[in-house]
């Protein structure tokens, strides 16, 4: 395919992505009313099936949202809404939201370097929360049963440095240059049988960069020379966005 053809396919795909949201919404609303008992009580079997269908439909909606969000970040069109927020609030709220997912795998979430008064950062609260959630969700997803995830938040001179370290499967050397690519899924992730769209980290890094920060990772064995396997993802958020937003 030549470049013009690829551009057209991309544009066509985006139109489809927009339009497919209407029928997906209709399915979501219908299933929600069934599960909610609007049409009378369902049997246990019917309820289980309806909930599975709802969840599967939601995954499709989430994928479409990620595709559109990635496209806005890549080609412009993402508008950030800035306000001053204590960064600890974002971190703690996200940890609370994911604590059940961690518990299901008996994964301990440890908070270190998280003391004193929270630094205030000027950010788009929802977008930065999504970026952190993505990194933390990945850490939980790729860490085996009984592992641990350690989060640190450190105020530096002009940034806040946020790190999430897991005891997971790590990232192979072959994959390390592609990990932030659109639709990329690591070979370890595929072997591990975890699901994902391959867009989460692309979006997370895009959001952080849009704030004037940076996102990177280190493999614990290869880069940090540690005995245990795993990855440390880090990103910075400038304390003040002045002059840093693209």
């Amino acid at each position, binding site marked *: 395919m030549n470049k013009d053809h690829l551009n057209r396919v991309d544009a066509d795909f985006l139109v489809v992505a927009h339009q497919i949201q209407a029928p*997906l919404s*209709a399915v979501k609303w219908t299933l929600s*009313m069934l599960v909610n008992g*609007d049409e009378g009580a369902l049997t246990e079997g019917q309820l289980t099936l309806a909930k599975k269908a709802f969840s599967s439909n939601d995954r499709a909606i989430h994928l479409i949202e990620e595709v559109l969000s990635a496209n806005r970040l890549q080609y412009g069109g993402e*508008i950030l809404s800035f306000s001053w927020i204590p960064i600890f609030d974002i971190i703690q709220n996200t940890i609370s939201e994911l604590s059940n997912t961690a518990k299901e795998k008996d994964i301990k979430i440890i908070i270190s370097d998280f003391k004193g008064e929270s630094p205030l950062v000027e950010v788009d609260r929802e977008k930065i929360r999504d970026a952190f959630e993505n990194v933390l969700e990945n850490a939980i997803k790729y860490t085996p049963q009984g592992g641990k995830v350690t989060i640190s938040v450190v105020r530096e001179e002009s940034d806040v440095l946020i790190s999430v370290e897991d005891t997971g499967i790590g990232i192979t050397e072959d994959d390390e240059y592609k990990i932030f690519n659109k639709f990329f899924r690591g070979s370890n992730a595929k072997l591990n049988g975890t699901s994902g769209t391959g867009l989460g980290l692309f979006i997370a890094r895009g959001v952080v960069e849009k704030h004037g920060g940076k996102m990177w990772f280190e493999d614990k064995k290869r880069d940090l020379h540690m005995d245990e396997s795993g990855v440390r993802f880090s990103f910075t958020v400038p304390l003040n966005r002045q002059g840093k937003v693209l």
Partner: protein
Amino acid sequence: MDEKLKGKKIMWVEDDQFLSGIIAQKLAAHGGTLLHASNGEDGLAMAQKEKPDVLILDILLPGMSGFDVLEGVKTNPSTKDIPVIMFSNLGDPADMKKAKELGATKFLMKATIIPEELVSEILSVL
């Protein structure tokens, strides 16, 4: 089901018949008085005549867009105080910004909420 919306005149402009039917079913179950238009021109005329307690507006409509209807409602002294909830498949930040500038009270994405949440959002602006 409780009648949370009893006595409230709720109007929505939506061209998707299937979704519109589900909205009607849900709002009727909560006792709302329902008004529906399926295109922008009829929606604006109906809003000006009926003066609903809340107006729910799709953006992509045949003819006048939801933004045009919103502008028409908000620039008319007799309808400017009606709370308007934009209700769209599009979650484009530029659209959200435009809706806010034109006076919309809320912006909801169809794909991210469920019918019960729409009822809660309506109650929150009444």
